[in-house]
């Protein structure tokens, strides 16, 4: 495969376009047919072959522009050829670099730079800190040292004709600048996404309370990706075969073409319940640090689970399903927090509200998911209501951002609530969340 295309595919993979081996082979085949001459044709053809969804197309476009677009190369500043000729002859090789600069051929210079960049493996760049080093290395290889030596020689030797040294110095600065730009582009193409990935991996296991607000967008992306993954894993398998129970009607029907001989035997199947989830989310002051992320998670759940009801409370409980369904993620979260967020907690009141108004939404197929720390400001926790809700539901799951050691300390009512939950767990990273929801959905499919 051509190295150009190979690098392009690598850049694509770095930008979250999972190009398979077969696809890259096909792309190579295609390029041998259509060539690199017609830019639009190349772009369209590669897009069709390599990018397979709207997001991938967008990433592809960025990548393609970055990879195949070159600004018209700038011409190097003029270096007086006559004056330097003698010197360069004297030194044997004034370096190819000097020749290139002297000729003033921008195209040739740019091409030589690209080629050298390939030779020193600039495409393997990993970190932004490597940029300066690589730029220098690129120029060294092209013969910058010779150039510098000449500058020094001219400065020392002929003070009178110092103009030559000045021109050379300008050329040197120009070269450094060009090289840095070239390496920058390589970094954007191959490595910028790496840093992002490392950051995201870190965020996945970071405690929600410790996540900075400016990482919110990243978090959103991570949570969305997780939600999508969960949806994909659980969107099928809605039917389970009950081995051993004959479906008489369908077997008879199937036997008709065989003269009534039941060749094809049909077993009864049971349609599995679709997950039905009621989420109650604490957004009060005590969970202020994580409320935003809990809501973010809730928001993504709305995209994944078709049958979901969401409520949030500090002291009074409100239905927030509509807000989450209709608004964009940021406005939705802001709205919820402005309406009911950050007030003193009252679990008892919230549970009372829930039982009064929404208990009808809980039936034996429903999983009730409560996200909160169970700190109720020493008000009456009314755990008997929780018990009643738990009896009605299929499962009651409590996700608590606090570690288990803190449950029951201070005003935490966890020990009173816990006996009524089928599952109570610490949950303060994205990874935890994923595991819990995965379990939850699996209980419907299993």
């Amino acid at each position: 495969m051509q190295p150009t295309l190979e690098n392009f595919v690598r850049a694509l993979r770095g930008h979250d376009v999972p190009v398979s081996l077969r696809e890259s082979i096909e792309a190579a085949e295609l390029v041998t047919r259509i060539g690199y001459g017609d830019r639009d044709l190349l772009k369209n053809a590669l897009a069709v072959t390599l990018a397979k969804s709207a997001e991938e197309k967008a990433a592809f476009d960025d990548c393609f522009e970055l990879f195949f677009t070159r600004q018209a190369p700038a011409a190097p500043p003029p270096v007086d050829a006559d004056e330097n000729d003698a010197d360069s002859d004297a030194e044997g090789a004034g370096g190819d670099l000097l020749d290139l600069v002297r000729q003033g051929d921008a195209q040739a210079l740019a091409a030589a730079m690209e080629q050298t960049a390939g030779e020193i493996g600039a495409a393997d760049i990993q970190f932004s800190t490597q940029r300066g080093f690589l730029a220098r290395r690129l120029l060294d290889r092209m013969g910058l040292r010779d150039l510098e030596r000449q500058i020094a020689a001219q400065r020392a030797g002929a003070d009178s004709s110092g103009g030559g040294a000045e021109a050379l110095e300008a050329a040197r600065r120009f070269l450094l600048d060009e090289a840095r730009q070239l390496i920058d582009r390589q970094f954007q193409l191959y490595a910028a996404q790496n840093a992002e990935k490392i950051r995201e991996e870190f965020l996945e296991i970071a405690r929600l309370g410790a996540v900075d607000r400016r990482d919110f967008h990243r978090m959103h992306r991570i949570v969305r990706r997780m939600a999508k993954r969960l949806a994909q894993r659980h969107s099928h398998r809605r039917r389970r075969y009950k081995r051993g129970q004959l479906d008489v009607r369908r077997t008879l029907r199937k036997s008709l073409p065989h003269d009534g001989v039941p060749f094809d035997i049909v077993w009864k199947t049971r349609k599995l319940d679709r997950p039905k989830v009621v989420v109650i989310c604490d957004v009060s002051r005590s969970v202020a640090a994580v409320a935003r992320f809990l809501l973010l998670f809730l928001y993504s759940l709305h995209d994944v689970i078709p049958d979901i009801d969401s409520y949030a409370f500090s002291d009074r409980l409100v239905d927030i399903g509509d807000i989450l369904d209709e608004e964009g993620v940021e406005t939705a979260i802001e709205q919820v927090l402005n309406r009911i967020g950050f007030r003193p907690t009252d679990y008892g009141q919230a549970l009372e509200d829930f039982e009064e108004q929404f208990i009808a939404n809980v039936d034996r197929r429903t999983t009730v998911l409560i996200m909160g720390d169970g700190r109720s400001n020493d008000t009456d926790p009314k755990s008997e209501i929780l018990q009643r809700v738990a009896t009605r539901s299929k499962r009651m799951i409590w996700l608590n951002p606090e570690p288990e050691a803190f449950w029951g300390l201070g005003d935490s009512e966890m020990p009173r609530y816990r006996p009524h939950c089928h599952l109570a767990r610490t949950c303060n990273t994205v990874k935890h969340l994923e595991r819990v929801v995965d379990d939850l959905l699996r209980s419907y499919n299993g």
Partner: protein
Amino acid sequence: MQHIESEKLASVEAITSALAAIDYIASPQIATAVYVAQALGKPVLVEGPAGVGKTELARSLAAMLERPLIRLQCYEGLDESKALYEWKYGKQLLYTQVLKEKLGDILDGAEGLDGAMARLNDFGDLFYSERFLEPRPLMTALREPGGAVLLIDEIDKANEEFEAFLLEVLSDFQVSVPEIGTIKADVAPLVFLTSNNTRDMGDALKRRCLHLHIPLPDQRLEEDIVAARVPDVSDRLRRQLVGFVQGLRETDLKKLPSVSETIDWARTLLLLHADQLEPQMVRDTLNVLLKFESDIEAARPQVSELARKAQRLSETGIRAANA
């Protein structure tokens, strides 16, 4: 025919002009996708909003190549026997009944059960031969001698098992019938799968297909499409009505009007002998463009302004602005 075909598919320009000759205006992306599809022999997964010409693309290609178009409409519960092949049970049954009489002759003089079985064995395979095979769209497409254009419409409606089953057909253009063997296409069909994105397609299928996204067209392309499909509309009206639809697409609607709606509307206006957009007439015919009552209600107050804008655009020469 092969010769003509290869000429028409030789380059992106050739495809564009050949499609234009039968009134399908293809954007460069579409033409490129067709070119790549035939060059690599891969199926194309076409996505985009309803009514932008996904199905029409396959139909036009079939017409252009003079190949038969074989269409498989997907729905929930579609399975192999409806997509690939089925045995003609009735015919098999009938033949069995008729041949029962002959059974005596065949078994005449057979020694014991083993002997009778051996003789029956010689005839057994007859009932599972091509004669009793009822080909369904996929198999028909594979067996078409000159190659076919196979359109698998709305693949997102079928369930995932069917998607998995398609993998074999689409990657090797062959199917195996256990009783007969493998049937392979002599000339690989051009395959198009369309999807309205009601659910995400599996990664395996996506990776095996080329992916073409057809967006709603811009003013210029849409004018060309209307000109090709409804040639009797005057230039001025065409420019105005397309401008109006483009404006409408920028408003907040449940279902944006698509190209097919634009074409229908152009035809309607033609029937009404319009030569330019009148707000009243637009209001009366809005139901051609918009398919939800709430959308019509939402758009009604904006009609005069959008129409005025479209008129202004047509006067200043939209083509120049867009170029």
